[in-house]
């Protein structure tokens, strides 16, 4: 079923370990960091808007008194 007879064989990739794992590794880093940055950007925007709203609320409370 599996193309490899053992875990060691799997990591060895028939002698091409360097090429295959570097390719998969760099790709994983780029994809994961890109996704993480996108999610963090969303967090930052939400936080910024929330803080601005709170500032406005405090201001209007101040002026209300």
């Amino acid at each position, binding site marked *: 079923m599996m*193309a490899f007879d053992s875990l060691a064989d799997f990591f060895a*990739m028939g002698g*091409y370990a360097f090429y295959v794992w570097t390719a998969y590794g760099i790709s994983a880093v780029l994809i994961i960091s890109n996704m993480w940055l996108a999610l963090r*950007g*969303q967090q930052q925007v939400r936080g910024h808007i*929330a803080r601005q709203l709170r500032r406005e609320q405090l201001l209007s409370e101040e002026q209300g008194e």
Partner: protein
Amino acid sequence: MVWNTLKRWYHQLGSPRYFYNFSSALLPWLWPLAVVTLVLGLVWGLLFAPTHYEQGDNYRIIFIHVPASSGALMGYMAMGVAGFVAVIWRMKMAEVMLKAIAPFGAALAAISLITGSLWGARTWGTYWQWDARMTSMLILLFMYVGVIALQNMIRDSRQAARAAGLLAMVGVINVVIVKYSVAWVQTLHQGATLKLVGESTIDPSMKWPLLIAMLGTWLLYAVNVLVRARSEVLWRERRSGWVRKLIGGKEQS
């Protein structure tokens, strides 16, 4: 009747608020689907697909290289369309998409080049050559970076969208060249084995994990675009009532 429906869809899709609500409903099931599909394709390709009779296990790079390449190309076409709509019709959501599509597309283009280089190192005996497809993908990467840079450098978001939109449109020509260069110019890169119509020449045991990995990559790209577009929408519409209620409503008791 159909025309009125189409008109309604056009206006709805153009509305940032509608898009935000629509994507809120879409994301919770789209992102798990994307991850599962991609993982399925990659695990199948890495572990279960048979070893290649000529290239050994080196060929397994294909399960990232082809999905990344196809994703980068498709992303750029979509960005070109967004650029066109942004420049000609000044549609807000098109400007949003112009920003949202670029980053992941750039990542995919870079992955295409890096994985292709590593694959070719042993298969062709060289890490790089100025062949038609490789050079075109490199130019595509520069175009992506250019679209991103323009929008970061120009202060006014509407002007930025105009400039980036123009660059995106011009760059679409490059995508056409990449797609057909392999047929037009007999260079290092091999001809197409995956065909839309007719028999593909790749073995089924390799074809299916490849197609699944491609689908997973595209779905993940869509998730990335939605997340980025939502951020951009929230920011652009931050002064509007619905955003204030959405964000502020959580703060108030």
